[in-house]
């Protein structure tokens, strides 16, 4: 947590040159969808987010937090795929999702591998004019792949607090450090 805090603080301190990028990973996602046995697709542009915001109940703690998080957002796109068995998708399927997430506009702040069910999670932030304007999460497991694309402006602190809310259960990570591989930026 401390390390993520330091990384986020560093990101605030560094000035990235502004650049506009068009990015449509649609082709890669269609291929994954064709291979998957189950798929969840959430596509919410700015108008839908504003529409949904009107129906979020401020008296419900989860919904109030959600309302706060999405208040200025321009889009949330979540695609989650489940596969029958391991090996049904490959690194070649994932690489196109990652390809546009390059510096100087994008910065990968987390890339962790966990022996727990072979999970790998990458977190990318986009920064323009000193503000965070994008978040991408790519999470892979042998039989599951999740791609989250959030178009900001966003507050990284709001997302740090997401874990533990909305009924997200605690994740047990293997306690054996010798079996773990991982890197963080």
């Amino acid at each position, binding site marked *: 947590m401390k*390390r993520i805090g330091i990384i986020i603080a560093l990101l605030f301190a560094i000035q990235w040159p502004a650049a506009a990028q068009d990015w449509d990973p649609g082709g890669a996602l269609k291929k994954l969808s064709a291979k998957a046995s189950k798929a969840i697709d*959430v596509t*919410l542009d700015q108008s839908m*987010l504003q529409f949904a915001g009107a129906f*979020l109940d401020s008296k419900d703690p989860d919904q109030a937090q959600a309302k706060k998080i999405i208040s200025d957002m321009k889009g949330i796109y979540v695609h989650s795929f489940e596969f029958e068995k391991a090996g049904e998708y490959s690194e070649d399927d994932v690489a196109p999702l990652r390809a546009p997430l390059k510096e100087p506009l994008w910065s990968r702040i987390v890339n962790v591998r966990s022996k727990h069910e072979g999970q790998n*999670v990458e977190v990318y932030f986009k920064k323009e004019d000193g503000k965070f304007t994008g978040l991408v*999460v790519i999470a892979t497991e042998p039989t599951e792949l999740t791609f*989250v694309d959030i178009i900001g402006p966003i507050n990284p602190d709001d*997302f740090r607090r997401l874990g533990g809310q909305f009924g997200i259960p605690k994740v047990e990570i293997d306690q054996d450090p010798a079996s773990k591989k*991982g890197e963080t930026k």
Partner: protein
Amino acid sequence: MNRLEDELKRALEPVEPPAGFAERVLARVARAEDEKPVRSRRWLGLFGFGVAGVGGLRWAAACALCVVLAASGVIYERDMQRRRGEEAKDQVMLALRITGSKLQIAEQSVKELDSTSQPRQ
């Protein structure tokens, strides 16, 4: 500080609710389930009540029908709007839950790496 904490634990020990609490909750839930919105049938009064003659009756019936159709359209549209809004809301919550769960995995993994990379004392 230990004594204060011990005393606080003692003072704030959980207490049983009054007898019959669970039954009262279940009864209240059952009442809430039974309460259905009662549709007003007042519009039926337009047909024949206080309207003179057959012609008047037909005219009243036609007017009532128009009002009902218009109102139905409005109600339908409002219902659809509300349903779409609820669906959009559910989608937002789903998206944030999925995002949160993946970020939590990343955070937990970083914490784990942090703790294993601390020098042993």
